[in-house]
């Protein structure tokens, strides 16, 4: 899957590239408007992640260029400004998602995956991890072809863990993804523990192996065992 990252801050670009390459994406980068503009004209990407503030132009203009060229690429706007205007303008221009800095790399990965799933009408309609199968279209989880009854939040929790499999996910990142910005600044330590425990119990009861590993003090890893 080809991804273009457009970001003027070198450290951010390197970190995003590193994380996303670890997720088996084919990552290209551009650190200014001009290069980005040339790249989106010359190559086809599955997803473009673009920072609004570039030294020589506005990232929104890239969105417009992509849309004018009828590109099929999914577009995620990244902005340091938590500005509703920018967000609305970006989405109006045809961007698919909007991320406000600072965000976490697992969150970026989840957004890209989700966008790719929505774009591929005929492709990946199922996510398989070991004994677990997720059907995002129906928000359904199957273990051994049997549907597992999960609450909507438990489903989103599982999807986020599967999307970022083999990665250590800290609690705050998980809570922010599943419950949103509202939980910002709220001590969610025990809260998340309860939900993970419930999810784990339901999966085990359905006959799935325990893929959720707890790293004390840090968070959770979804992995197929050591």
């Amino acid at each position, binding site marked *: 899957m080809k991804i273009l990252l457009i970001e003027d*801050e070198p*450290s951010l670009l390197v*970190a995003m590239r590193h994380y996303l390459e670890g997720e088996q994406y084919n990552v290209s980068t551009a650190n200014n408007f001009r290069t980005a503009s040339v790249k989106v004209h010359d190559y086809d990407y599955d997803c473009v992640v673009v920072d609004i503030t570039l030294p020589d132009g506005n990232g929104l203009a890239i969105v417009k260029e992509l849309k004018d060229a009828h590109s099929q690429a999914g577009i995620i706007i990244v902005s*340091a400004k938590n500005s509703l205007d920018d967000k609305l303008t970006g989405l109006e221009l045809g961007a698919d998602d909007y991320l406000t*800095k600072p965000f976490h790399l697992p969150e970026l990965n989840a957004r890209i995956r989700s966008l790719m799933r929505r774009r591929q009408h005929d492709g990946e309609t199922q996510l398989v991890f070991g004994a677990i199968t997720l059907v995002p279209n129906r928000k359904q989880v199957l273990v051994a072809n049997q549907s597992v009854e999960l609450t909507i939040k438990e489903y989103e929790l599982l999807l986020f863990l599967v999307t970022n499999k083999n990665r*250590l996910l*800290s609690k705050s990142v998980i809570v922010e993804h599943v419950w949103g910005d509202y939980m910002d600044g*709220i001590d969610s330590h025990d809260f998340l523990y*309860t939900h993970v425990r419930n999810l784990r119990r339901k999966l085990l009861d359905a006959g799935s192996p325990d893929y959720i590993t707890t790293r004390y003090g840090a968070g959770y890893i979804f992995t197929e065992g050591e």
Partner: protein
Amino acid sequence: MKLLHKTALYLLLAALPIALGGVFLLNEYIHRDILDEIDELLLSEFIQVKEQLRQHPPAATDLPGWDPNVQIALTTTPAQTAPTYKDTLAYNHREHEPAPVRMLRSTYAVGNKAYRVTLQQPYLEFDEIARALSVGVIVCFLIVVMLLVGADILVTRRIWQPFYGIIGQLQQYRVDGPDEAEFPASNVAEFNLLSQSLDVMSRRTRHQYAQQKQFTDNASHEMQTPLSVLSFELDLLQQSDRLDETDLDRIQRAQQEIQRLSAMNQSLLLLAKIGNQQFPHEDAVNISDLVTQLLDNYSDYVAHRGITINRMIKEETFRNMNSQLAEVLFSNLIKNAIRHGDANRSIFVQAGTNSFTITNEGDPLPFPEDQIFGRFVRNQALPQSTGLGLALVKEIADQYGMSVTYKYAPSMRRHMVQVDF
């Protein structure tokens, strides 16, 4: 009252005493003039009488008695006296009543005879003429004043036209509007000056506003980027296999502080933006729906802490305000109550037409009550708090002229925050 009407009214009010005083003065003046004329008339008549007496001194018996206005009598006083004038009453034969007359009295000697001459001249219509004249003149004066006021209204209305144009422009003026305000030019020097001064002022204000806004945006961008770098580096570091639990714990705490710093940065920028009035767009915000939705967002967390929320939300309550700010206002209040409220207790939320009240159970504040809406005033026991949530609530409420009050009931251990719309 319009300037136009005020001027006209004052002109008319000033004209009235002038008219009244004018009647009096004019009457006096005409009276005196007539008096002088009559005296002159009497004097010339007296000279004629003297001439007659000198040329044809009459016998004592045939002193003329046929004219009541000319009476000549022999007198024993030998000395001649200068004529004296006097106002008196005399019987008027035509009107059959006493009427005011002017009388000249003098003694005149011809040879050895002395005559006492009394000449009378009735005022008759003179008085009436004086009165009619003065009233007539004043009526004319009043008519002229009224015509002038009328003309003044017409002229003033024309002259002040550009002024009203400027006011119209000012009313529509928005420092953040898309277009530069154009104040109309005029051929009146003062209005032109006003227009130009306003042009300069509005351009300067717009410039400063734009700069301020730019600074706010830049500050946000400049700070969020290094925070993102920090956060990304920690995200990557966390994936390393060589870390033990203590290391991971340290990373977690660092991440939390980054998050807090970022939230603080966002809140401070929001405070600055509100102060700069950078949220001009207003909608009729459905408070009932907003509060319900915000409470629902926390339903999982509230259930986890065993908190029960008692809602009394009046349907279809609207308030005109910026929707983004409305969300910040109510979500901060709700989050505050949920975060600080004791576990396994209740929270009351009441949203009515004129007020919003939220109460939660908990220990008294660790700081003085009147500081609760201050910036960076926070409960040190909660490390993730920024101390800006309620400061934002206050700032937003002030922006829309709402009042926010805090009360603590020690007997029930309840904190209450109320917003009056």
